[in-house]
């Protein structure tokens, strides 16, 4: 029954369209801060597309890389949390338990990907924007660390559904909001323990790599590197 949820992101397909970011905001009740706070670096995007320039004009290229919580198997954020708010669950998720978090922000320091976000303030929605909030997901208050959960609410709901129908969760049945929305299907989500799942097959690709693999965090977000075409360039 246990799974090892993982995501494969094909950087060759990713166009930097940021649909995943908007989808994540909508699904996970992520607050918008405001211009002033955003200028101070407090904007919250559990997933965001990092852009890296290569070269100089005119031979310039930009690389896009969606970065979210990498759900490391050996996560640096977990052992440093004094209250077990960050811990590893049986499905291989880096869980973040909001009610257990006291806001030491140690995990955020330890995370090499800076994938963790802190609620510097109590989030505020101008009414009636709050009507959009997803009731399946907590609305976090000030002082709590949060991050990508691989849309845990969807995982739980799917598992409950599967159990009610007395069957296993199918490959591709769980789709985090970003995966669901990605127009180029650059993102694939699934169970790494199932050798036939799409993620497993993609993770075996020659192009598969992980972010900052030299740190030994063993992430479960696997990137497929961008290719160049036909040797034309």
């Amino acid at each position, binding site marked *: 029954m246990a799974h090892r949820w993982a995501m494969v992101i094909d950087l060759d397909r990713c166009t930097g369209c940021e649909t995943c970011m908007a989808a994540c905001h909508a699904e996970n009740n992520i607050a918008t801060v405001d211009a002033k706070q955003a200028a101070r670096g407090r904007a919250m995007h559990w997933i965001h597309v990092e852009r890296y320039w290569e070269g100089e004009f005119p031979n310039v290229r930009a690389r896009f890389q969606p970065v979210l919580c990498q759900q490391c198997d050996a996560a640096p954020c977990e052992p440093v949390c004094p209250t077990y708010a960050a811990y590893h*669950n049986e499905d291989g998720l880096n869980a973040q338990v909001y009610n257990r978090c006291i806001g030491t922000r140690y995990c955020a320091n330890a995370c090499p990907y800076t994938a963790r976000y802190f609620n510097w303030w109590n*989030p505020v*929605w101008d009414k009636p924007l709050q009507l959009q909030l997803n009731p399946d997901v907590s609305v976090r208050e000030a002082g709590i660390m949060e991050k990508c959960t691989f849309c845990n609410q969807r995982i739980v709901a799917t598992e409950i559904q599967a159990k009610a129908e007395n069957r296993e969760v199918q490959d591709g049945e769980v789709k985090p909001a970003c995966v669901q929305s990605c127009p180029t299907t650059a993102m694939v989500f699934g169970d790494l323990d199932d050798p036939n799942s799409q993620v497993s097959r993609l993770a075996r690709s020659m192009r598969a790599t992980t972010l900052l693999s030299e740190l030994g965090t063993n992430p479960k977000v696997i990137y497929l590197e961008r290719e160049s075409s036909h040797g034309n360039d």
Partner: protein
Amino acid sequence: MNNAQNEKTPGSSEGKEKTSADRFHRDWLVVSIAVVGLAVAATMWVSAARGMLEGQDSSPAAGAPAVSTPEQVPAVFTTARRSFFSAVQEYFGVQGTPVQPVQFNHSIHIKNGLQCAGCHSGVTQGPDAGIPSVSFCMACHQAIATDKPEIKKLTVYAVKGREPPWQPVFWFYPEVHVRFRHAPHIRNGIACEQCHGDLSKETVAVRSKELTMNFCLTCHKANAVSVDCVTCHY
């Protein structure tokens, strides 16, 4: 030679000390009380200043609904506690006793053969059990027991096109971040009274069981279901 003590008995100097000593502790009391008082005042003032913006923390409005205007409602939705006192209450997990607008009698309904899921119909299908709308109540009570004072109250609501402001009996503070789902529990044969108590013995529902995390865990452990934090907290 020994440093022999040519001891002066502290005569005159003692008197001086006495007066200075009196001043000493009086002043000290004042200073320390002032410091502590200011600190407490600071905390409360800061919290209260925000609390005032977001409306007063008043007792539950029972009975007939009052006319309300948008001005009474804060223009923003926030997770911030309403006031210093509500923060303290939440801190200590104090939930208070709900006052229901209509004294709904659970036991009579159960005695008359109604099932829990008959009214709380969401319980088998989704996370929330739900409270039926007044129109649902009126389906029966247009004819049944219309002379009872509580039913009359209910009828007033229905005629006005209003829902009675039912107060939740079993609930969690948002801060505990629990996503409880009824349906899987019902599917797995957990009886309602296991968590909500025997409502056939209660009239107006009361919080007969404290739904603490330990309460959940005990059962989860006994039934060998997941005790993973993110099964419920997300």
